[in-house]
Structure formats: C-alpha cells, structure tokens
C-alpha cells in the first residue's frame, strides 16, 4: 500500500487541465496526481469527461489549457505513439486486440522484433512467454490466435502489450466490465502485482466495491471538473462518492423491497427446460410483482436460460407457460405477443438500432399497433415515445435524437421504454446496468422495482452478484447449466452464492 507520508515524487501530475471542442468545454479544470506503483481510481458519471481526460493523457487529444507533468518533465505529446514511448499505455474498454493475429503478434504489433523486415519469431515468442509469466498467465501460448481467447485473457494480452512498451502507467478503462467474478479476481491479482513492480494504474470503474478492493486513492470528476482528489479508499463512504459524482444525495442504491404477496398469481412457469450442452432441468416460477434474480458466473447458462424462455433459442425439451398458456418453443414472436419482453445482454449489438432515432427504438416492438393498414403513424409514435421518456426522466425528451448519442444508462432506459410502451406481463432483463454509471443505476433499479410493483413479473440476470441480491426478491443460483438453489434473496450473501457456485461446479 502506498504511504502518503512518504514524499514520493508523483509520476503524473495534472493541473487545471481544460479541453474544448467547438465551443463546448469537455474538461474545465481537472487535477490529477498519480504516484508510482499506485492504483488511482478515477470516478465520474458518463459524460463527466473521463474519456476526454484519458484520450488527452494517451496523446489522442491535445489539451487547450493547464499543465501535465510526467516524471518531472512537461508532457507534450501529439500522438498515441509518443505517449506509449514515454511509458503511458491505455487499455480501452473495447479491447484493441486483433482477433486474427497470434498472442505474440498482438503484443508486438507496431514494434515488431524484426531483422530486415523479417519478423524474428523466436525472440518474439520468448519475450511473450516472459511477459505472460510475469502477468501470472504462463499457460497463454504465444502462438495462440487471440480470437480464441476469453475476454479475460484478451485483457491479459492487452496488458502484456503495455508492458512490452515498458509502460510506467497503465490506464484501464472499465477493465472489469467484460469479466465475471472469478476473472475479476484474477485481474485484481495482476493489478496488485503491477503495483508491486512500481507501475502505476489509473483504474476506471463504475463498480465501487471493486475500487475498495484494489484502489489506493480516488479522484472524482463531474461535468469536466475535479470535485475531489486523492480521497483515501478505506475511509471514504460510498454515499459520499455517489454524492460527489452525481451531486445528489442517494440514500441507498437499491430500492426497498415490499413484502411479497404470496397469493399473487404465478405469471410465468418454466418446467424442465433443456438446451443440450448448455443447461438442463430448469424449473422456475415468477409471480406477478416479483423480481426473480439469476446469479451465476459467465458460462453458467444464465443468459441462455433467459433467451430460451424468450424463444430466442429453441429449447430441446421442457415447457414455458405464460398466464397458463404454453408458448411454442423457439418463437420470439409468440413470446412477445403473449406479453413477454427481453432487454438483452449486449445492449448495443442485440438491443438497439443505434443510428435510428430514439422513437423508432422505443416503438420497435409496437409500431404495427400504431399503424393502420400497414401505414405508419409516426406522429403517434413520437407522442407515445415522448410520454415514456418523460415518465422515465430521460432528458431531453426528444424522440428524434439519434440513439447512439445517449449514455449507457439512457440507452437502457430506451429498452425499458420499449417494453413499457408495448405492455409486458413478464420482463426479462439481462445485465440491465452493464456500462451504466452509479447515479443512473439507482434510477434503473428504482424503475425495475416500480414495474414489479405495477404487477409485472421480472427476471434479472447479472454478473454482479450484489446487484442480483440487492434488487431481487428471490434468487436462483445457476452453475454449469443447473439450478443449485432457489430461495429468498435476503437469506443469501455474495460469498454464500460464490460458495454455492464453486461447490456446484466441483460436484
């Protein structure tokens, strides 16, 4: 752990940084100080300016004002290559590895070990093996094609690339977003080892509990300005961090759970559902007004269960009944017609048409209803969309805005609006808060609870166990394609769920 009393010279020091784009101030006075070997956490809502700050440090943007001091020298780089040469490496959220190349080729991409234009395969592989051993992953072979690796291992490759440039500071933009709990543990181990080797990390994450585990100090930016610097991780309360980020008091992230009405009708019944090789023997019921959570690791089958209930995958056997009526297997149309809705795991690639205006995304499931004889009624579509946006407090409530320009939280609201407008009896939510910042998360949790209170049966899948426990009334623990546990959420803790999962995998 870093000791602040030591007069350590900061590795990176940013003062009053400003950056303007066509008259809009993206950064308006950001300070940041990073010590060697420190894991410095950077917090801020979407749009706060984190990305602009990162891109300035990585040489993509040039600042308009303020100073950056790097290892005691003024920092003036105009390209990412210069930043990398100085020792600043950036791992972006969308991993910048080339799937078709091998691990070694990826690591030395752009600075290949070559003699007279011919790549020196042997040296490259030896150096790659050394880097992988250093990162605690000697099992990743230099010749393996990167496309075959898991997201977690791709990240290791990305980190190895940073180290191959002798990075002294690695900026990690939401590195855990694509990982499940076990892989996150591994990431933390690597980050700690980097720290021990004197390499500093700027760590960006929306998950405050992660920051508690590996961070040393926290800096918060809001609306392009620093609102707090160098807060100690151990002693700063979560409510304070949320207040700094959002500018609002948030009592609790999760809404309070009402006492469940045991006489409420069962809306969704799933019996002995099976998708060979993925999951089998899945039974579950959800009552009107109930939120059922599915907890499990990536690969446990939790998303597949949801998609099969919805008909997006065709079950091999088993039955799905909605309001007592059996749905045909493998038909999304039938499920939607019966009153089911899905907010899919990958919001951008599975949920939204990003280049279309908001209203066309909101009405995607229901536009035929507003049409007469096949003729669209866009006026009504816009009006209904505006109503939904207003109800969901999405500002500005402009139905014609291009969906791509919205933050993750607002894009999630668009998906909720789609099903609210369509009217669902069963709503399936897969990773409803992935890539959504803390302030917006609380809003989305509250919306989900409101929906349940209005009688909708909800199933939530999340890789974040605390989210499943905090939001749900009842939780199913899934491992290896089987349901291991079915019980009230309040009887479980995160570690109890992990124990169950581990024992289930072992069994």
């Amino acid at each position: 752990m870093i000791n602040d009393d030591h007069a350590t010279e900061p590795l990176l020091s940013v003062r009053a940084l400003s950056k303007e784009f066509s008259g809009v101030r993206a950064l308006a006075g950001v300070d940041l100080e990073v010590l060697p070997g420190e894991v410095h956490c950077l917090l801020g809502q979407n749009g706060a300016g984190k990305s602009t700050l990162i891109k300035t440090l990585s040489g993509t943007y040039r600042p308009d004002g303020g100073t950056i001091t790097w290892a005691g020298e003024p920092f003036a780089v105009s390209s990412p290559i210069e930043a990398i040469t100085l020792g600043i490496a950036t791992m972006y959220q969308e991993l910048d590895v080339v799937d078709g190349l091998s691990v070694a080729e990826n690591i030395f991409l752009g600075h290949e070990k070559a003699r007279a234009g011919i790549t020196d395969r042997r040296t490259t592989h030896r150096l790659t093996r050394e880097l992988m051993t250093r990162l605690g992953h000697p099992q990743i072979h230099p010749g393996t094609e990167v496309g075959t690796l898991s997201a977690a291992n791709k990240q290791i490759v990305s980190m190895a690339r940073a180290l191959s440039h002798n990075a002294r500071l690695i900026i990690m933009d939401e590195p855990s977003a694509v990982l499940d709990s076990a892989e996150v543990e591994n990431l933390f181990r690597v980050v700690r080892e980097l720290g021990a080797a004197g390499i500093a990390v700027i760590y960006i994450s929306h998950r405050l509990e992660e920051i508690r585990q590996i961070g040393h100090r926290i800096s918060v930016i809001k609306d392009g300005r620093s609102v707090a610097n160098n807060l100690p991780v151990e002693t700063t309360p979560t409510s304070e961090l949320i207040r700094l980020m959002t500018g609002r008091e948030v009592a609790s992230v999760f809404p309070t759970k009402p006492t469940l009405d045991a006489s409420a009708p069962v809306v969704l019944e799933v019996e002995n559902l099976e998708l060979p090789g993925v999951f089998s023997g899945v039974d579950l019921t959800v009552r009107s007004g109930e939120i059922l959570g599915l907890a499990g690791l990536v690969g446990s089958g939790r998303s597949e269960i949801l998609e099969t209930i919805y008909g997006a995958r065709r079950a091999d056997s088993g039955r799905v009944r909605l309001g007592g009526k059996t749905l045909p297997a493998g038909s999304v149309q039938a499920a939607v017609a019966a009153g089911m809705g899905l907010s899919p795991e990958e919001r951008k690639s599975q949920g939204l048409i990003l280049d279309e205006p908001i209203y066309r995304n909101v009405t995607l499931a229901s536009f035929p209803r507003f049409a007469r004889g096949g003729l669209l009624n866009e006026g009504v579509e816009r009006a209904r969309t505006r109503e939904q946006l207003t109800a969901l407090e999405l500002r500005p409530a402009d139905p014609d805005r291009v969906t791509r320009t919205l933050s993750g939280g607002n894009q999630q609201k668009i998906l909720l609006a789609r099903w609210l407008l369509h009217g669902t009896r069963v709503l399936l939510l897969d990773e409803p808060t992935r890539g959504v910042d803390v302030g917006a998360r609380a809003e989305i949790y509250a919306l989900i609870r409101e929906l349940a209170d209005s009688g909708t049966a909800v199933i939530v899948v999340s890789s974040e166990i605390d989210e499943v426990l905090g939001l749900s009334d009842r939780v199913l623990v899934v491992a290896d394609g089987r349901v291991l546990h079915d019980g009230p959420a309040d009887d479980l803790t995160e570690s109890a769920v992990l124990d169950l999962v581990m024992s289930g995998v072992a069994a």
Partner: protein
Amino acid sequence: MSVSPTQTGDHAVTRKNPLALLFSGSSGRSIGLVIALLVLVLVGIITAGDRFANIGNVLVILRLASIIGVISIGMTFVITAGGIDLSVGSVLGLTSVVATLSWVQAFADQSSWIVMVLIALLVGVAAGFVNGVVIAYGGVVAFIATLAMLVAARGLAELLANRNTQVLNVASFKAVFTANFLGIPVLIWIFALVVAGGWFLLNRTTFGRRTIAVGGNAEAARLAGINVKRHTMYLYALAGLTAGIAGVMMLGRTTAGTSTHGTLYELDAIAAVVVGGTLLVGGRGTIMGTVLGVLIFSTLTNVFTQNNLSTSVQAIAKGAIIVIAVILQQRLANRAPKKKDPEAPAPVVAPSRRA
C-alpha cells in the same frame, strides 16, 4: 441525469457550420447528388449544345434510365436491409424468355397479353422467393445465394429459349409499351410509378420500417419480435418483382425475349443504389438517392454518346464516379454527429482540423 456535453456539442457544431448542416442527413446527401447531376448536365450543354438540351433528348435519357431504375428500386430495399441481390439481371432475362414463350406457344390466340405480363411478374417473384427462402431459412449468405441464382436463371433462360431470340409479335402489347401518355413514353411512366410506390413503401409503411430495422440491427429487430426471416424472404421477392417488371419493360422496348437481356444490370443497379447514398451495410436507404444515382449514370452515357466517345471511356468514367461518390459520402457521413464513443464530446473532424 445531467446534460452531458455530447448533446450540446453536436448542436454547436452544426450551428457553426451551415454548409455541414446542408450536406448532412439524407436530404443533404441528395443535394450533393443533384449538384453532381447538374454538373453533368452543364457538361452536356457545353459539349453538345442543342443536341443535348432538348426535350427529345431528356426523354431519351429517362427512357434509358427506366429499366435499370425499376430494378434499382427493388435493389434499394434489399441493400437497405443489409442484403444484396446479384440475380436481378438474369432474372430479368428469364422473365422475358418465359413471357415470350408462354405467349408464342400457349396463349397467343385465346387471351390478352396481360396474362403474359402477369406470368413475367410471377416468374420474377418466384425467383425472388427462392432467393429469399435460401437466404432466410437456408442460412446461405445473400451474395452466394443470389450469385447461384444469377448463374442458374441465365442457364434456365438459355435452355428454354434454346439460345434463340423469340420475337414477340403482339400489336396491342407493342402499341401500349411504345405509346406516349401526356407526351411522355409509357416506360418512363412505369418507372415513375415504381419510384413513387417504392418511396411510399420504404418511408411510410410498416414494411419499410421493418426493412430499415432489419438492416440497422437484425438481432435487435428479432428480439423485439419482428419476424426477420419472413421479412427477408419478402424483400427478395420484392426485388424479383421489380426484375419481372423490368423484364416486361424490356419486352416492350425490344419486342423480343432473349436470355441475354439484362446482362450485368445487377452491377448497374448496385452502383446506382450505392452512389445514391444507401448504405451497403444496411440500415439506411434512400429511394430519391437511388433515382438520382440512376439518372447520373444515364446522363453520363448520353453525354458520352452525344460526343461520340467510346463506351470504354464511358466505363472508366463510371468507375471513377462510383469511387468518388462513395468517398464523398463517407466524408459527409463522418461529419454528421455520429460517434462511436458516447462520452467523447466532440465530432472527430473539428479537433484534427485545428491541430
């Protein structure tokens, strides 16, 4: 939620640069094409004078545009949905052969030529349905499936026609298709009707909305409850229908059915659609852009013919236009407020220009 800088940023940029505003969006792209067309017209007037600039010649250009134009409308739908149809040219040939044969061998005396027209349309739709089924339910990539149809339909047409050109001698049919209505040839009227119908279908109906949704994000459309497979099938049937209509128009113009009708028309149609601004990856389509694309190419041909330039030079110019148009489109598209990273507050162009 607080208003992120992104929102204000985009507006600020468009306000600052009225020219960028003019050229962004679908209407803006059309303005670019109109300018290109006007330049071509100007070249035509300067080089060929009155030979170019008279009503008769304008009608020649439009007549030239009409058959490719009809196919291009069907192609616009398929491409907007993220597909491609390489078979339209040979399906055109097949419809012309089947229609002529059906007339010559079967119906000649008993029925109206309208039956023959219906048969042509039916053949086009059927070929399109086969494409659609193979693509949507067989899971074959559109490029390959329609390439197979391109080869097979041409082969079938040759087989049926026995490599002969079947002359169609139906006075009433000829009379209708060579007639003028309000001083404008019937072929041009048909083109205009197909354009109007296509525009309406794409922009005002649930069918059009589904087409754009499937092209924009097929998985999102599927998970929202849209029957993507069925819609895909309909789209190729629609492309087949336009090939059938074009086949009938070809019969009207040449009064003969032959298996070589429509050779390479698919490439002209794709070029017109892409130059017109419809995205090859799908999700955005413009009927007016396609019409302008078709007109640009037929005007070009006319200008070259008027100046007695070889078709080879013309082909080179066509190729150059396609590349230039697509590069311009991409430039303009980048200028539009469209960002990969929702948090980064500025358009890509602005900072790099200053740097």
